[in-house]
């Protein structure tokens, strides 16, 4: 292996990761629109780039796999292959493998696993009919080591494709010897690369023979024997059988490809309307005659349009016969019509089969459609591969749409419709639910998003560490700024004192005043610049949420397949920026919510249809910024939360009393699902409910200073709303004094502050409480829960900071309020991390250190009381007097 430096490996990893990041959403999009050539091209290019880079690094497993996938796309691009569900599944598997490999390579600088299995599967897919042959190849190479086998696979594939190229060149009457030489040169190169010396020299000889033949003017003769001698040389190493049969069976396949496509469209149309023609009744049937007339006239117009004159004549003949029947001039003769039908079938290849198939497919469940289309040979049917799917699609469309009535459909019109239908996704599991034509195109947002991914702006890649360091510096600057602001106010105070006390003559004070003014101005300017700088650096850490959201389409797809559900995913506001760190913390909770929505929220297509909903469920993930917060909502249009189940669970687990329940609003009940021990899932499934409940989701979101609520409406769906701070690195805080220690309370949680004296505090069962405006609020004296802060300045007079966090409401008792300011959070040293109650530390303007309170942990202390209060309130409501009740006035 070549000797690469660290940087090169890093470049390589980034390159592959970037390509994969583009590739995956594009692949999802392509699955929906398999005919979109621009997406197809992009997919091809991604694989091509990965192949190129992997080749350069000598990573054969990745290069080989990329090559195989690239070939699939190339064939699709050339129109010789239609990517079916099986192909997409396989390509997704390849994406996963690439991710594994690249993680490996990033760490170990080598590939520790191979991709022979996937390459084999792709090849098996490539020659569906050649499955036995693929098995042969496998058997042969089993003896060799895995790596060799994979190299051999690439080699065989390349040789085959070169051989194919050669046959193509030779098909041309005036084959260009220099083109042949090029192909031979490539063969030589490939043989050399793989170390097949015999083959290499054999091909070299053929090449020499070619140049001699050209020189001596015997090229024509040489040409005739060329294929045989190449075949002979290759036969030792490569199995050319499939190539040979292919080229023999369709000598001019490519030329008629376009016509073939048109023809298929015509056939499909024929199938759609021509039923009566295929099923001639044994006796005169007026209804049939009418249907027949209708169909014939449509088909004639279409055939005319296609310029299939013979067919047009036949159909005219048919029309005449019908007219005779209608006028009653002649006796009904079935054979006249069946004869005409046979003649039509002779003119139109595949027509008879198609109607035969059609009958079958009506009897069999649609689910088999895929399997059967898979059995069809790839090349001979071209676009016909997915005929059954196609039918199912058309059937559905016409069921959904009243235009199925013959009058409404004009030939050209329905033709256009068919074309459009073929671009629509045919669903993987054969549910074949197509949206009625009047619904807006699906994945609109998604499409624009991925469009954005595909186009690249001008970007500079910066190591995150550098940004972090810069942020640290900015944090220092913020501290310095604060200290300068403080110094300024001190100076001002000093100046006023001097002036007021008249210790110095006014003239002498004037220069001081000017200096002070200038200084104040500079500090103000500095403040502004520092603020901008801070903002700018914060922004650098921000990423569009699309970098988080983009992993969900794939997840949704896989979940749907697993659960047999159909979901249309919409992503909105994907360019909303969010701090990278926040995003990381958000990934798991969001994933949990999405899994829940698909697993428990959205119903199965059957169930939805029965309920009069669209079979395809809607799932929408939206992000938007509101001030210093980002709101992310996940909504589904599924069955909604089960109120009864939640209530039952809450009651049976004793979390809530029946009386308390009566008082609760609808919304409060929904939000019970976040309470530990209450999960709406009746059973634990593979998808969600792996022991992690929504309570963990809520906890994780609150840990980053966010909040989550849920809204639901029975039968209409559920929406989770997450409110997340823009960044974790800087918060607005209220600095308070506790003993001699400064602490910071995140301002987002502060509800109010007020003065308190000891007399206003009472206690209930060991909990200190205060009463305010008829409310009873627990009091948590920070000086008591955190030891070592020193004695309070005045034990009788202190301040209360009332904070609210979710349903928790409490007052923090502090000795003094210092003021509001933005603080940059610095993580605590490791030995302090285990201490609950602090989220971090910060440096204040005067250089002293303040601890930032971890409110959820602090408020944990009041939870016991809240529950207690709940009970007492109930008892009070029931008229039970326990002596403590008078507290609750």
């Amino acid at each position, binding site marked *: 292996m070549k000797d690469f430096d660290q940087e090169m490996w890093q470049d390589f990893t980034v390159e592959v990761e970037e390509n994969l990041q583009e590739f995956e959403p594009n692949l999802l999009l392509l699955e929906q629109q398999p005919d979109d050539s621009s997406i197809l091209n992009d997919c*091809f*290019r991604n694989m091509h780039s990965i192949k*190129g*880079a992997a080749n*350069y690094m*000598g990573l054969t497993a990745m290069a080989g796999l990329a090559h195989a996938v690239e070939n699939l796309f190339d064939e699709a691009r050339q129109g010789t292959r239609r990517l079916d569900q099986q192909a997409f599944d396989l390509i997704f598997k390849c994406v996963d493998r690439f991710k594994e490999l690249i993680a490996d390579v990033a760490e170990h600088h080598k590939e520790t696993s191979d991709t022979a299995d996937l390459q084999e599967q792709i090849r098996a897919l490539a020659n569906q009919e050649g499955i036995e042959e693929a098995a042969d190849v496998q058997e042969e190479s089993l003896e060799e080591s895995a790596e060799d086998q994979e190299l051999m696979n690439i080699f065989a594939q*390349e040789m085959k494709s070169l051989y194919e190229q050669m046959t193509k060149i030779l098909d041309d009457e005036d084959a260009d010897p220099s*083109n042949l030489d090029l192909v031979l040169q490539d063969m030589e190169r490939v043989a050399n690369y793989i170390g097949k010396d015999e083959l290499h020299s054999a091909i070299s000889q053929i090449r020499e023979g070619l140049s001699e033949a050209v020189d001596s003017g015997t090229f024509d003769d040489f040409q005739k024997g060329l294929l045989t001698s190449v075949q002979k040389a290759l036969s030792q190493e490569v199995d050319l059988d499939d190539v040979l049969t292919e080229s023999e069976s369709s000598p001019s396949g490519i030329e008629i490809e376009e016509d073939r496509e048109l023809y298929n469209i015509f056939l499909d149309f024929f199938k759609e309307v021509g039923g009566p023609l295929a099923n001639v009744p044994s006796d005169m049937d007026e209804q049939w005659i009418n249907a027949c007339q209708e169909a014939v006239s449509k088909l004639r117009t279409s055939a005319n349009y296609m310029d299939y004159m013979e067919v047009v004549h036949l159909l005219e003949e048919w029309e005449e016969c019908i007219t005779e029947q209608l006028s009653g001039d002649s006796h009904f003769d079935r054979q006249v019509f069946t004869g005409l039908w046979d003649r039509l079938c002779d003119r139109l290849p595949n027509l008879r089969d198609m109607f035969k198939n059609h009958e079958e497919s009506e009897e069999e469940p649609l689910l088999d459609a895929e399997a059967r289309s898979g059995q069809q040979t790839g090349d001979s049917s071209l676009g016909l591969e997915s005929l059954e799917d196609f039918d199912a699609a058309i059937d559905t469309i016409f069921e959904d749409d009243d235009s199925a009535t013959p009058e409404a459909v004009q030939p050209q019109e329905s033709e256009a419709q068919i074309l459009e239908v073929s671009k629509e996704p045919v669903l993987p599991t054969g549910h074949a639910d197509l949206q009625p034509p009047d619904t807006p195109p699906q994945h609109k947002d998604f499409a624009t998003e991925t469009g954005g991914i595909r186009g690249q702006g001008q970007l500079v890649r910066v190591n995150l560490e550098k940004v972090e360091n810069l942020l640290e510096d900015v944090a220092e600057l913020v501290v310095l700024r604060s200290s300068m602001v403080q110094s300024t106010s001190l100076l001002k105070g000093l100046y006023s004192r001097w002036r007021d006390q008249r210790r110095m003559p006014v003239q002498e004070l004037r220069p001081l005043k000017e200096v002070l003014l200038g200084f104040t101005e500079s500090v103000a300017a500095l403040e502004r610049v520092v603020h901008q700088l801070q903002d700018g650096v914060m922004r650098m850490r921000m990423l569009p949420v699309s970098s988080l959201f983009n992993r969900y389409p794939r997840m949704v797809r896989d979940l749907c397949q697993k659960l047999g559900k159909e979901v249309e995913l919409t992503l909105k506001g994907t360019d909303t920026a969010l701090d990278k760190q926040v995003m990381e913390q958000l990934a798991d909770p969001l994933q949990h919510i999405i899994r829940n929505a698909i697993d428990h929220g959205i119903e199965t297509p059957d169930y939805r249809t029965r309920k009069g909903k669209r079979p395809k469920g809607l799932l929408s993930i939206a992000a938007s910024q509101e001030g210093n917060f980002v709101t992310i909502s996940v909504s589904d249009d599924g069955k909604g939360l089960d109120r009864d189940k939640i209530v039952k669970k809450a009651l049976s687990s004793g979390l809530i009393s029946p009386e308390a329940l009566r008082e609760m609003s609808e919304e409060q009940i929904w939000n019970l699902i976040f309470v530990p021990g209450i999960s709406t899932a009746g059973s634990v499934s593979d998808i969600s409910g792996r022991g992690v409940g929504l309570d963990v989701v809520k906890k994780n979101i609150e840990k980053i200073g966010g909040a989550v609520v849920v809204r639901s409406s029975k039968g209409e769906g559920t929406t989770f709303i997450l409110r997340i701070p823009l960044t974790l690195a800087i918060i607005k805080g209220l600095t308070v004094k506790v003993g001699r220690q400064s602490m910071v309370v995140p301002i987002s949680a502060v509800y109010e502050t007020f003065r308190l004296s000891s007399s206003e505090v009472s206690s209930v069962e060991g909990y200190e409480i205060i009463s305010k405006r008829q409310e009873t609020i627990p009091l948590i004296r920070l000086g008591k829960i955190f030891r070592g802060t020193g004695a309070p300045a005045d034990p009788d007079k202190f301040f209360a900071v009332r904070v609210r966090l979710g349903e928790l409401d409490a007052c923090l008792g502090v000795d003094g309020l210092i003021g509001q300011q933005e603080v940059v959070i610095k993580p605590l040293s490791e030995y302090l991390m285990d201490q609950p109650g602090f989220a971090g530390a910060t440096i204040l303007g005067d250089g002293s250190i303040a601890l930032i309170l971890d409110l959820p942990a602090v408020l944990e202390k009041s939870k016991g009381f809240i529950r207690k209060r709940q009970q007492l309130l109930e008892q009070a409501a029931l008229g039970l007097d326990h002596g403590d009740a008078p507290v609750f006035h």
Partner: protein
Amino acid sequence: MATVLIIDDSSFMRKRIGNAVRQAGHKVIGTAKDGAEGFDLYTELRPDLVIMDITMRGIDGIQAASMIREQDPDARILFMSLVTDPEVISRAQELGAIDFLGKNDSEKLSRIMDGLGKQ
């Protein structure tokens, strides 16, 4: 010392080729990620040599090469691509590409680059 323009859609390859060019003592005066950008840069910079990929978004290597050739019949173009389709290769040769090499063929690239210096 020759001036070189690199056109490749992969930043990884641009960097690698750039390194090889610089190691051979030449100067990379521009890099482009697709044919259109490459053509514009060529017009602007007039490098001694263009090293380019074929598979690229939008205007591909072959198209870009013919545009460049049209504007400057003396342009020296070197394709570096994994394309094996003889049609494409012969088209590249028609365009007078000075050579055609695979992406991991860095030795040959260095040889060509060395040769370039002597001319």
